[in-house]
Structure formats: C-alpha cells, structure tokens
C-alpha cells in the first residue's frame, strides 16, 4: 500500500443543445455578433421574469437518468448571489437544495478496468455572458448570458490524472450520445474543474485545491498529476496544502495559484421566488425514458462480447454514436463484424481523415461499404483495387460496382498467365529461387510483389502466393 492517497472530484459544465436560452426565447447560439441574441429577460432588465425552458429540463433529466441519478420529484431553483460584470442580475439562477438529479454513478473504463464513479448531483443553471478585455477597456457580450448550463458534480472517487482524463473523455462521449451537448471543449461547450486532495493513506480527504479552466482532457490529466506530485512534496516536507484555486499553465507545465479577491464567497442561496418548482409528470418522464439510448460503455462491451471485436476496435467504434450506428448498419447488411470493424477503423478512417469528412455525412453509405467488403470477400477485387474504389466512392459519390466495372478492376484469375509470370521471374532471380529451396521463405513476398506489378495489380495476391508455394513445392 502506498503512503499517500489522492482524491479527485470533478465539476463538469455542459452547454445544453437547446434551441433557446434557459429562461427566455433568445437563440442559444455562439459565434454571432456580440449582443445580438439578447432580450430584456436575459439582460436582466428591471421588471422581467424568467420562464423555464422545458427542453432544458428534459435534457437535464435525460443526463440524470444516464448517470443513474435519483430524479427530483420537485426540482427547485435557487438564487446564487454574487456580483460579476457579466452576470446581468448579479445573481445566478441555479439549483442548490433540490437539483434535477442526485446520488448517481457513472462507470468508466480505465485501461480495461471498469471503475464506478459516484455522482453527487446534477443541476441546471444559467450561464453568464463573456468579458472581452481590450486596451481601451473591457467589453461585454451577453449572447451567452442565460444559456442552459448543466453542472455535474462527482464524488472524489477518482485517484489519478489518467482516471480523470478517462472520465472526461467517456463523459463527453456520453453527452454526445444523448444529443444534449456537442462536447466541444475548445469552444467551451464542455468545461471542467478538478478538485484534488492528497493525504496519508487511511486518513481520508486532505485539504483540497481546485484546478479551473482546463480546456482539454489531456491538460486535465497533466494538471492533476502535477498537483498530486506538488501536494505530496509539500506533505513530505511537513508543509500544509493551502486551499485555493489554481490554474494550469500550459507553457511551464505546472499549476499556479490564481490570485483571487473573491476567496470566501457567501452565495446567500435562497429559493428563486420567480419560478415555481418543476414537477415532472408521467408524460415527461416517459418521454425521458423513450429518449434513452444504449450508452457507450455498454455498447463497447457488447461489441467485444457479442461481435468478437478487439477491445481497441470496439473503443474506436463506440466513441461516437454515429460511428457505432454506422458500423452496426454495415454489419446488418451482411458484412462480417470483425471485417467491417477493420475496414472502418482502418482504411475508411484514414481516407476520411485525409478528406476531413465525417463518416455519417460522407458519400460512403453503409450500403456502399458493405458492397465493397463483399467484392473483396468474393475475391472480385483485391485489397489495392478496394482502396482505389474506396477513394473513388468518396470522391465521386458513386457506387463501388460501377467504379469497378468502369476501371476494369475486376480480378483476373488467369492461372496460366500467372504461372508463366512466375517462371519468368524465377528465371530472372535464380538467387531468390535458391533461397526458397533452402527453406528461407523471405523471397515469397518479393515474388508476390514482382508478379503483382507485372499483372498491373489485377492479380489476386493470395492466388499468387499459392501458385508460388505450388511451383517450388513449399
């Protein structure tokens, strides 16, 4: 048992993909001209009142269900009071006493081990606007003010930066599966803070520090691991860890204390009097049930156990729901699962990446890929021909069969012609023949390559190999 134990808890904020903001009808859209998606309500003008967006509530309950939380029978909004220039009312409508969901868990896969992380609660709140600092002063853009933000708070069940990275990646995948968030960390639609404390084993939680504003799961891992080392060193030296907020500095690869005037906040929470408690009815809850989908980890496990995929392939295929759906569509069209998986995670992905395309929106429909795989399986085209067809399908948006026909890629099975070629190449390379006869198999590849080239790529490599073995009695 190691001397120290570390405890990591995460607070994740996701922007919900609702069409409008959480308490008004303004578009919930980023990147528009500053202050164009605003109205008296989200600007906090005198006399306006919030009106709860039921779509945001729906997505929140859906996430709650996916995270095995107990759904609130009566979700209550509270006011969280603090002054900040980009908060229009200087209080944030959030949830404190009775959030949407409490007491759940999320199973993550860390290097093949399933780890259960408890969820403390999930609560819905409004986001603040954005401050843009310039030489002439600070400018305020309120387009983001009032957009629906769901906060997920875990218990301190993670122990390493690797755990946290896996959690964040798999959670991102989850919310994309559910269709409630695009998970884009660079644009801030998914943000994560990490709380971390280190203590002597068996002594429980230590003094925690908070790492804020990390914008990738990799940096989260680096920052937390750095912070674990830093706190251990302090404890080794008999020093105390100061409870504070720290920032990850990418350039120096270390966490640094964030000077903060607002250290001891008293948010003075009290129930938001402008919003009645939200009590989901039967219809609402069954709509949530109906929107539930097989989650990434479950799907990954099924792909391994039922379809015989390798863990790595299953992971690659299930990260995005659209890819997993695509894969299953190809299998449903008759392709052998492992073969389809190899195609999708191999050549298909390589070409898509080069073309910067998504599989779901590319011209390679599941039908076309299934056809292509069948053509190869039936030995009608070889691997090289298949690659050419694949590229052409993506390029020209046409069916594989017509491309094969047009380009004359159909494999020739002219054994006599091939036999003549083998003789010719053997005559030209007596040394290689000698090697083969002495039991050294290396030259087989050389022979196959030569023959393939001589046939203009149309020969079936497997047939060629069989022919060579035949010819030299191997």
């Amino acid at each position: 048992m190691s001397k120290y134990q570390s405890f990591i808890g995460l607070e994740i904020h996701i922007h919900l993909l609702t069409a409008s903001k959480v308490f008004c009808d303004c578009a919930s859209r980023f990147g528009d001209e500053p202050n164009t998606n605003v109205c008296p309500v989200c600007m906090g003008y005198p006399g306006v009142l919030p009106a709860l967006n039921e779509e945001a509530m729906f997505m929140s309950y859906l996430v709650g269900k996916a995270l095995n939380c107990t759904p609130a029978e009566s979700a209550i909004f509270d006011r969280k009071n603090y002054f900040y220039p980009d908060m229009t009312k200087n209080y944030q409508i959030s949830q404190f006493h009775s959030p949407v969901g409490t007491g759940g868990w999320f199973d993550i896969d860390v290097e093949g081990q399933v780890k259960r992380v408890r969820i403390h609660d999930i609560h819905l709140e409004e986001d603040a606007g954005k401050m843009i600092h310039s030489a002439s002063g600070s400018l305020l853009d309120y387009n983001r003010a009032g957009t629906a933000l769901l906060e997920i708070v875990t218990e301190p069940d993670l122990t390493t930066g690797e755990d946290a990275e896996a959690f964040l990646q798999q959670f991102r995948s989850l919310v994309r599966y559910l269709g409630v968030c695009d998970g884009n960390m660079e644009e801030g639609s998914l943000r994560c803070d990490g709380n971390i404390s280190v203590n002597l084993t068996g002594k429980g939680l230590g003094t925690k520090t908070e790492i804020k504003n990390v914008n990738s799961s990799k940096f989260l891992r680096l920052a937390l691991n750095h912070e674990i080392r830093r706190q251990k060193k302090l404890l080794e030296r008999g020093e105390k860890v100061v409870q504070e907020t720290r920032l990850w500095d990418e350039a120096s690869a270390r966490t640094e204390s964030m000077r903060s005037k607002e250290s001891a906040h008293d948010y003075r929470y009290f129930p938001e009097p402008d919003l009645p408690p939200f009590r989901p009815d039967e219809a609402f809850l069954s709509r949530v049930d109906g929107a539930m989908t097989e989650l990434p980890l479950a799907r990954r496990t099924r792909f391994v156990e039922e379809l015989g995929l390798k863990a790595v392939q299953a992971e690659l295929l299930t990260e995005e729901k659209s890819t997993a759906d695509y894969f299953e569509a190809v299998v449903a069209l008759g392709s052998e699962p492992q073969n389809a998986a190899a195609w999708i995670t191999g050549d298909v992905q390589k070409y898509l990446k080069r073309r910067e395309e998504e599989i779901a929106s590319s011209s390679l429909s599941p039908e076309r890929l299934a056809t292509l795989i069948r053509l190869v399986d039936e030995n009608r085209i070889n691997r090289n021909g298949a690659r050419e067809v694949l590229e052409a399908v993506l390029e020209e948006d046409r069916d594989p069969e017509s491309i094969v026909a047009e380009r004359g890629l159909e494999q020739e099975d002219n054994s006599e012609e091939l036999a003549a070629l083998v003789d010719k190449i053997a005559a030209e390379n007596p040394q290689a023949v000698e090697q083969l006869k002495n039991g050294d198999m290396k030259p087989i590849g050389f022979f196959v390559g030569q023959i393939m080239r001589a046939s203009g790529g149309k020969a079936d490599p497997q047939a060629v190999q069989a022919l060579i073995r035949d010819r030299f009695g191997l």
Partner: protein
Amino acid sequence: MKNTRTNAIPASWRGMLDDPRRAAAHRSYVDEWEKKINSFVQIDPRPGNGEGALAGVPYGVKDNIAVKGLGLSCGSKILEGFISPYTATAVERLEATGARVYGKCNLDEFGMGSSCENSVHGASSNPWDPARVPGGSSGGSAAAVAAGLVPFALGSDTGGSVRQPASFCGVYGLKPTYGAVSRYGLVAYASSLESIGILAGDVDTCRQVFDSIKGEDPKDQTSVPWEDRSGESSSRRIAVLEDLSDLSPGVDAVYRKSLEGFREIGWEIVPVRLKTLDYVVPAYYTIATAEASANLARYTGIRYGYRAEGEDHADMVRNTRSEGFGHEVKLRILLGTYVLRSGFQDQYYGRAQRIRTLIGDEFSKVFQGAEMLLMPTFPVAAFPHGESGMDAFQQKLADKFTAAANLAGIPGLSIPAGMDGNVPVGMQLLAPAFCEERLFSAAREFLSVYEPARCPGFKEPS
C-alpha cells in the same frame, strides 16, 4: 349581485383621450392639481388602438411598472434616464381593451415606504389635505385617482402599498390573489409577496380593470389561470378581530362603525383572534428584504440607468449604488443581505418562512367559519408630511394589518369607510385566494351604509 358584469367606467371618461378638446380641458385640470399633489412623474398619453370597452380612457401607471417608451424610474436616482424597452403584461391587457396610459405615477423608491415622500421626484401629497401624505408606496397612483386625474391607476402591493394609500386617499385599492395578475413588467422588490394592484374611484371600475388584467401569463410562471372560487354566498358571516389595540381613535371609530354597518346589511359578525398577527411585521420584513437584496443587485450602472465615476469597475459599481439608492433602499438591502448570510439562514429566513406558513394556516381556519375578514387597513389616517408625521420605524410596525395578506397570498380590498377629521379612513376586506368577487360584492353592498365623498376640488370630467 355576484357575477353580474357592469360597465363600470363613468361615461364621462370614455373617449376622453380620443377627443382633442376634452383631452386639452382635462389636461389643464390635471396641471392645476399636479402643482398641489405631484402625483405623476411623467405625463405622456400613449396612443391607443381606439377599440374596446375602455376606449380612450386614461389611466395612471405606477412608475415601477414597465410601459415601452416611457421612463421606469421606480422613484430612484439609480434608474435615471432609463426608458423601458418593453411593456408589462397588465398594461398590454389594458391596451387591448382600448384604455390608454396617461402617465407614470410617483412612488416610494422601489416600492419601499408608506408615505410617498421617499422618491427622487419629490414627495406626493394627499388631495384631501396637501399638508398630509397620500400614503405609499403607490401614493402617486392613489392621489391621482382621488383627485380625479384618472379614473383608475395601477399600483403594486408588497406589504400594503396599494391598500394603505387607497385608505389615505379615500379610494378603492385591490391587492389581488398572488398569481392572479401577471407580475411581468413589475420591477421586483419582493417577488414572492408582491402583486400588481388597482386603485380606482369606484368599486365597479376596480372590478372591471381586474377582469381585464387577471389570468395566466406564460411570461410569469407564478401566474395561474383565473378560476373564480367565490362560490355562492352561503353564510354571510364576516370575521372581525376580537382584540384590536394600537388604533388611533379616529380609525378605531370608523372600524366600529363599519362593523355595525355590515351587521346592518345582514352580515353576522364573528369575532376571531389572529395569534400570528404580531409576527407579521418581522416575518414580512425578513422575507421582503431578503428578496430585495437579490432583486436590487442588478442596478450597477453597467448597462442602464445612473452611472457614477470610479477608478475601476468595482469602484464604479460601489459609487453608483452608493449615490443612486436612497437610505430606505440601502437599509433594506443590508438587512436582506444580513438575514441570508450563510449559517444564519435558518435563524432568520427559514423561521420567517415557517411563520408565513402559520399565518396562511390561521387565515384558512378563519375562512372556514366566515366568508371574509374585516380589518382596518392602517392603524392611523393620513399623517402629516415630514418629521411631525410617523417615523420610518412606526410606519413599518403599522404594516401588520396589510402585510398579512401578502404573506398569505390572499386578496385584500381597501374600501373607503369613514372620515377622521378632514381625511378619509379605509377598511380592508380579506377573502380566500381567488375570491375577489366576494370582496367586490361586499364593497358594493357597503355602499348602502356608507357612500364615500370626493375630496375638495374634485370635478367629474366633462
């Protein structure tokens, strides 16, 4: 009498603003009065759609209720120069009946006060006796109606802000059931307590305006669909308080007389005790100030209103709030911040909420044995301006009769019931939630024992 709809607004008001000659004559009448009572902070008749039951009828709007294109000062320096970009739902609904906003009425800053002296626009005065206050915080609205400048006005009632000035000015003042009228567009002071209310020269006008503005509004999720729960008159029992102390002799006399009046017109008097009445004021101020501390946090000079100079952002906000808010507002923000402090919430805010529940329960019990409850609106009649009047603390203690209805969310109607010397005295009728019809109907019956007079100088519009 119940459920009969009368066309209440006196004919002389109809079409007034659609007729330039009558409008001009009326304007000079208004200007004369305004020199004495300062009831409006802005007069700027809005265009109307010309149709509907109240076509061309002018009305006043308390200046904490939004009307697009007009100021929304809330009686505060901090909203100096602010023009509302939108219109309150209640005003929109009145517009739909053809009524036209005549102007914005003076008030105690952000609705905090009982005298209408607490305004950046200066004090308003009582039309019966300009040496006295018109009451508050909807003092401007009450004074304008009493003087005949408008047949009705919208006010807001957080702890008695419609009923108390109605009582001081001898007009009808309704605080509706919480949720019966949309609060969208009413600048928030204490959200869970306040309602938009009506001040009117006669009970039928009050009722007609209420009919026009009540009902659910998607912009206010605390509003509810209107459902009349008055029921058929079964008992004709009216509850009265057994042991009323602290009343001025004048108010006490009117109270006893109105009690007799109700007996005369066939009501059975049921004496009751409200044990929680002593806790109304502390509970009310705890909840109201807590909510106010949050509601008033948005005034920072950043996006609208008055902005002070400052060295940096925090300094600018501090100076803006320091210069922009008056003493009473600052006092209540501080009090609210104090009672919500972490670790003390249960001691103050939580306890106040429990008292609030008890007050509601006690009212429910009273209404099991009686249709209505009769109480004085305020322990004294209109008091003189300035130092010789009531001090701020006495005024707060005196809110106990009115604030109870706000804590319980039930409707209350203050009706003119007598005189104390040269100023009127009002009594309030309280009923269970959504039983406004009982109040209107009882107020109409009461006219047979007391017909209120108009203040000196009052003239019917031509």
